[in-house]
């Protein structure tokens, strides 16, 4: 086996490890570790898709976290406001579809008064249990969220077409902040800072591998997030290997030169925004159903900085490195939470860990621009190149010398 296959083999081992881990691990902190892994996978999707956008295509966007918000809020609003009922409520906005009624619940915002219930709750209390309404399927909400992420990705992609480097970063930062401000402001619909609750990923629980899992069990969401991560990595791998990857990298290096060589730069720039935005939105939607509440604070710029830092420390020009970096950093940040005492002084690691993280980021940027994981992978993939070049040059010189 050649050393070029080592990273692939390591990747398979890693996938196998994560696939069996929930079944073999049984310590007391099982739910906590599972929670960390689910969160780690979530950040891995964000970091790897952002690495395609920023590292491969050179579109240094700060709007990625905004797209997770679009995915999360789309499915949250969808599940919160739309129901199917066999009877007309005669209170809500409703449309007959076959023998069912599609109910649009009126938004009532945040209120403490039990008197002002929304139209559906009023109808339900009037029916007094004689009618069962059906909630919208969670999977449909997640798909809608993903599609909505793509729609906004298309919009942003078109808007930033003429923008480069710092201007693109500023624009996307503005987009993300406007989105957050709009969601915070529209209390009547989004419930503002109070946040909006979402149903469980599997509200009735789910039976997997002959075992029934309760809706609060960590294993089903673990595998949903894990498979979403693998799907995203699979798509990214395919894109990176195809002409898409070649063209977006050419676009990053020199947009005009790429166009002069026949590359439709507009198409690929917009496409890379659409695809990576959909990944962020899908991850955001699944994560929101897992933590079951979404607030505008999830879109804060600090969150975006975390994703950027994860991708940069892993290696922004390699999406696998970015994903691994995200999981490692998520774990490190958590493990560093334990405060300790030096003599009489208590070192509060809940705060100091962020300082350590910041220092790590600065050291990485200064001394290893390609991150920490990416050079290891490159060592295996490209380590032979220099040797080959020298060998070929030697051979060329020899044959030239021989013929003269």
């Amino acid at each position, binding site marked *: 086996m050649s050393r070029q296959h080592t990273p692939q083999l390591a990747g398979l081992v890693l996938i196998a490890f994560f696939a069996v881990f929930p079944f073999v691990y049984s310590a007391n902190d099982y739910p906590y570790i599972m929670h960390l892994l689910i969160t780690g996978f979530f950040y891995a999707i964000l970091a790897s898709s952002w690495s395609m956008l920023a590292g491969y295509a050179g579109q240094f966007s700060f709007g990625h976290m905004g797209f997770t918000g679009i995915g999360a809020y789309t499915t949250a609003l969808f599940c919160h406001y739309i129901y199917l009922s066999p009877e007309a409520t005669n209170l809500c906005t409703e449309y007959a579809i076959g023998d069912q009624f599609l109910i649009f619940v009126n938004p009532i915002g945040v209120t403490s008064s039990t008197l002002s219930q929304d139209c559906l709750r009023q109808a339900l209390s009037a029916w007094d249990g004689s009618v069962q309404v059906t909630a919208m399927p969670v999977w449909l909400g997640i798909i809608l969220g993903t599609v909505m992420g793509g729609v906004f990705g298309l919009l942003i992609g078109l808007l930033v077409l003429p923008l480069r480097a710092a201007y693109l970063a500023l624009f996307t930062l503005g987009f993300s902040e406007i989105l957050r401000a709009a969601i915070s402001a529209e209390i009547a619909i989004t419930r503002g800072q109070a946040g909006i609750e979402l149903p469980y990923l599997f509200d009735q629980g789910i039976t997997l591998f002959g075992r029934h899992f309760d809706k609060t069990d960590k294993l089903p969401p673990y595998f949903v997030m894990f498979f979403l991560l693998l799907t995203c990595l699979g798509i990214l791998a395919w894109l990176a290997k195809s002409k898409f990857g070649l063209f977006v*990298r050419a676009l990053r290096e020199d947009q005009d030169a790429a*166009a*002069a*060589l026949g*590359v439709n730069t507009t198409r690929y720039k917009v496409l890379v925004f659409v695809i990576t935005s959909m990944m962020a939105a899908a991850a955001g939607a699944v994560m929101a159903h897992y933590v079951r509440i979404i607030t505008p604070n999830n879109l804060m710029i600090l969150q975006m900085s975390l994703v950027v830092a994860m991708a940069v420390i892993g290696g922004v*020009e390699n999406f696998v490195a970015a994903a691994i970096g995200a999981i490692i950093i998520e774990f490190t940040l958590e493990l560093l939470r334990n405060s300790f005492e030096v003599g009489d002084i208590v070192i509060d690691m809940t705060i100091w860990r962020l300082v350590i993280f910041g220092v790590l980021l600065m050291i990485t940027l200064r001394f290893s621009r390609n991150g920490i994981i990416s050079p290891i992978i490159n060592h295996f993939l490209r380590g032979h*190149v220099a040797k080959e*070049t020298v060998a*070929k040059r030697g051979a060329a010189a020899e044959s030239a010398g021989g013929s003269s």
Partner: protein
Amino acid sequence: MIDLVVTGLTKRFGGLHVLKGVSFEIHGPELIGLIGPNGAGKTTLTNILDGAIKPNSGTVYLNGERIDQLQSFEVARAGLGRTFQVTRSFRRMTVLENLLVPALALGHGHNRAEVDEKAMEVLEFLTLEHLRNEYAQSLSGGQQKLLELGRLLMLDADVIILDEPFAGVHPSLMEIIYRYIERVNEAGKAIILISHQMDSIFALCKRLLVLNYGDLIADGTPDTVKNDPTVIEAYLGADDDEQGATNGDQAAS
């Protein structure tokens, strides 16, 4: 049959009249020098032909297809390629990947074996074969210029505009670029060569276009252009003309 027809191109940047109605035609695999002092409009003309900027008026037809309103990538696919005055290789991509970009952009991706073979031929011709898996940024300035020329070979354009291909190039690489121009020309491609190096222009080109402040002041064989009083006054100058003539003669002999 190659057919480039440029009619009445004008371009203004604010109050600056960069091109004032430039017209010329190229039929067949000609090797044409485009000369003129700095600010004459050579690069603007190139950018219009290549689709990077749109003219205020005038038309460009390539092989019967109007290309002056097309985008750069469409012009490239229609068969017009160019290099840039300052080398613009894709620095953090390998030499081979640099060559694959135009080939795949033309949609030859389904036949990768053939594309790879052609790329290797191009690299051998440019003496870059041993560097194929190196990143372009690790190449010397001259080698990056060769790489840019290689990308044009992969684009397989009918008309090629070379913007200052000799600037800052060592004589040994110059030799390769000379051979490149001759070979591409013999393969039936038209070449527009922009250069301030009169020796090279006179040695290679059978026809010269002279731009001066947005006007095309001469279009003819090197000999007629050299002796054209307008050109002498505007560009070559009385003393330079002597020099240019001698160099031209030397190269011809």
